[in-house]
């Protein structure tokens, strides 16, 4: 009797593990690692992607790339820049990347606050500024903006930086909770946040080219599904979801 119940237990344990192993028959599951800024657009797209159930994980693009370098194998990697997918492609970890969307960098400020109304206010001593880490795309774009400023203005803003956050979501959170007076994030982040924060546009001369790259990860069970997901980002349901969330066409 005992032996039977033991093997029954083993059978239950095995069947609980099974869905991750076999997915090709009835309803396939597509796993997508995507930049934190893509969360609302990709969640919307997943609801409209009929071919498979889409399981997504959103985090800083550099963190997702580091996971793939350490052996993680999602089906699709979508990054807030083109450099990280290019690096993974050169390392033989993904197929050729495609650029699928653009975005703008803005200054996010708390809705009620009048402390920061323009870039000049960000330079004023005592303004608490939050940016992304240099390694995360939003932080790299922010440094491009700062690099285009005259040295004195750049130094003034750099001196006001109080925190370097791991991803764009936590950069924006520091403004939303009232800790920071200003933060450099994507325009779509501010739109997705609803109230609480508003965006101040950057002068066109300072605006960096924000391009999103996507690649299909090598060595998959069903690369066809992953390619369909990517194709939909360029023409189709994914593209429409991106426009609804405020993303620009690829630059």
């Amino acid at each position, binding site marked *: 009797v005992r032996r039977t119940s033991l093997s029954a237990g083993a059978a239950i344990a095995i069947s609980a593990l099974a869905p991750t192993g076999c997915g090709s028959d009835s309803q396939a599951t597509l796993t997508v690692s995507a930049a934190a800024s893509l969360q609302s657009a990709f969640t919307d797209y997943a609801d409209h992607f009929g071919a498979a159930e889409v399981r997504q994980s959103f985090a800083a693009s550099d963190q997702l790339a*580091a996971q793939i370098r350490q052996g993680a194998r999602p089906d699709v990697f979508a990054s807030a820049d083109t450099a990280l997918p290019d690096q993974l492609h050169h390392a033989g970890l993904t197929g050729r990347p495609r650029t699928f969307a653009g975005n703008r960098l803005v200054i996010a400020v708390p809705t009620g606050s009048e402390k920061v109304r323009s870039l000049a206010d960000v330079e004023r001593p005592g303004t608490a500024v939050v940016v992304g*880490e240099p390694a995360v795309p939003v932080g790299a774009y922010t440094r491009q903006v700062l690099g285009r400023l005259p040295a004195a203005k750049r130094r003034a803003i750099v001196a006001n930086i109080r925190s370097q*956050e791991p991803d764009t979501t936590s950069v924006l959170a520091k403004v939303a909770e009232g800790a920071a007076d200003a933060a450099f994030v994507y325009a779509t982040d501010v739109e997705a946040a609803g109230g609480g924060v508003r965006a101040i546009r950057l002068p066109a001369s300072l605006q960096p080219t924000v391009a999103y790259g996507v690649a299909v990860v090598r060595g998959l069970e069903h690369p066809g599904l992953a390619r369909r997901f990517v194709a939909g980002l360029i023409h189709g349901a994914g593209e429409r979801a991106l426009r609804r969330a405020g993303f620009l066409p690829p630059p």
Partner: protein
Amino acid sequence: MRAARPWFPAIAFVALAVALAFLVIPVVAVFTNTGPGELVSALGEHGAREALWLSLRTSLAAVAVIVLVGTPAAYLLANRAFRGRALVLTLIELPLVMPPAAAGIALLAAFGPNGILGGAIHDAGIELVFETAGVIVALVFVAAPFYLRAGVAAFAALDASSLEASRTLGAGPGRTFLRVAIPEASGGLAAGLALAWGRALGEFGATLMFAGSFPGVTRTASLEIFATFNTPNGFTAALALSGVLVAVSGALLLTVKLVSGERALEGRGI
């Protein structure tokens, strides 16, 4: 029933082997995944040393606060029976089981710029968010329960007659606390201190959410590990810093075992 005897010890043995392997392999991998030379040179990086130094300073400051306030508080809780004592004991242990992200949010809701005490703190001229002081607040919040818990257990286990003898000989309650209770409970207190210190060194989520992350100001070793891991080729540097934290935590745990002997394992009092 008779058939059960031969195979159960074997299953238990296998279970122990699986548990041991699962818990030990990741710890060993921190030191063996990359060569020792690379690990040591990664520690020479400015960012790594700055983060370790900040972790050391903030965790020591937090432990100092915890010991100064926690020792008399634990003594009172151990020696007084009062209505609601069980509730107080539960409340001070709550941060032990609180998820770090929830702790970060809770600290913001209480002491953040828009928190219920945020205005008063700001008016008092104290800045916590984006400041080293904010890191210390986060560390105290997550680590204090370890010391309080151990302190209450250590004081509760004291021989009541020696405390009474001290009082009959004319020592006041303060003198009895300092000269008799603390020395006699020192093993349990030291164990609690080491556990609290270990927890403070490892703090991540509450620090990032409440204090932010800036090199030299709020970026502790745990935050530096996270920041370094994401950079290309940052895995080795992250491993090296992890190795230091694992070694220090291991040393602290060993200290707990040595100073408290078997007493810490018996779990008396609460």
